[in-house]
């Protein structure tokens, strides 16, 4: 299940996947990020606090979302990263491009 909270700012949205972010649900996350950016909210925070597992397709969806958001003049940041997600970010060296933030507010406020 994926929730979106668009009340975090006029041009920002908080997207919260829950459970396991694997190939079963990643198409939904990709669509949701695209729709959110198209609706004018290109500053996206994906809050992973309710998500205990991300596979390579989930990482791919986050990278796709990062590119989509940046093309629209925004950005995609991640927050609330648990130990498995931190591990896969490190294994793939993607922690350089998707730097984990502790909180959604911290992710939105970071430069």
């Amino acid at each position: 299940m994926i929730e979106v909270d668009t009340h975090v700012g006029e041009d920002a949205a908080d997207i919260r996947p829950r459970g396991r972010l694997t190939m079963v649900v990643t198409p939904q996350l990709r669509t949701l990020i695209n729709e959110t950016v198209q609706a004018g909210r290109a500053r996206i925070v994906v809050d992973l606090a309710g998500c205990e597992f991300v596979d390579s397709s989930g990482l791919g969806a986050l990278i796709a979302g990062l590119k989509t958001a940046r093309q629209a003049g925004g950005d995609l940041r991640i927050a609330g990263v648990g130990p498995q997600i931190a591990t896969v970010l490190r294994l793939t060296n993607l922690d350089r491009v998707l730097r984990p933030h502790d909180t959604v507010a911290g992710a939105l406020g970071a430069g």
Partner: protein
Amino acid sequence: MLEALWGEYDDVTPSDRILFETAVIEIAGNIAQHAAAGVPLQFTLNLWVEPDRVEAEFRDHGRRVDIDLDVVALPDDSAESGRGLAMARAAVDEFHYRRDGSTNQWRIVRRRQR
């Protein structure tokens, strides 16, 4: 299924669990995507927890996997796919694939932390 396994073997460290499960899920995903190629495919998965290692073996009757495991590498940071097997290989100590007749066989071993 892995949760049940860890319940039974609660002395496997969190780090070993995370890395082993990540590799298992990536191989299962690879079988579903490549060997199955859009048609339903069953695979069998056997798991072993030994004092010194955790091990998984997958068998399926899908298409042969044409891949040189020695050159499995991470794609560019901006790639939206193609990381699965490189992730799996990085997460375990042994990573094998072989085609045996009409069967694909994957075997991974993670040596346990003490």
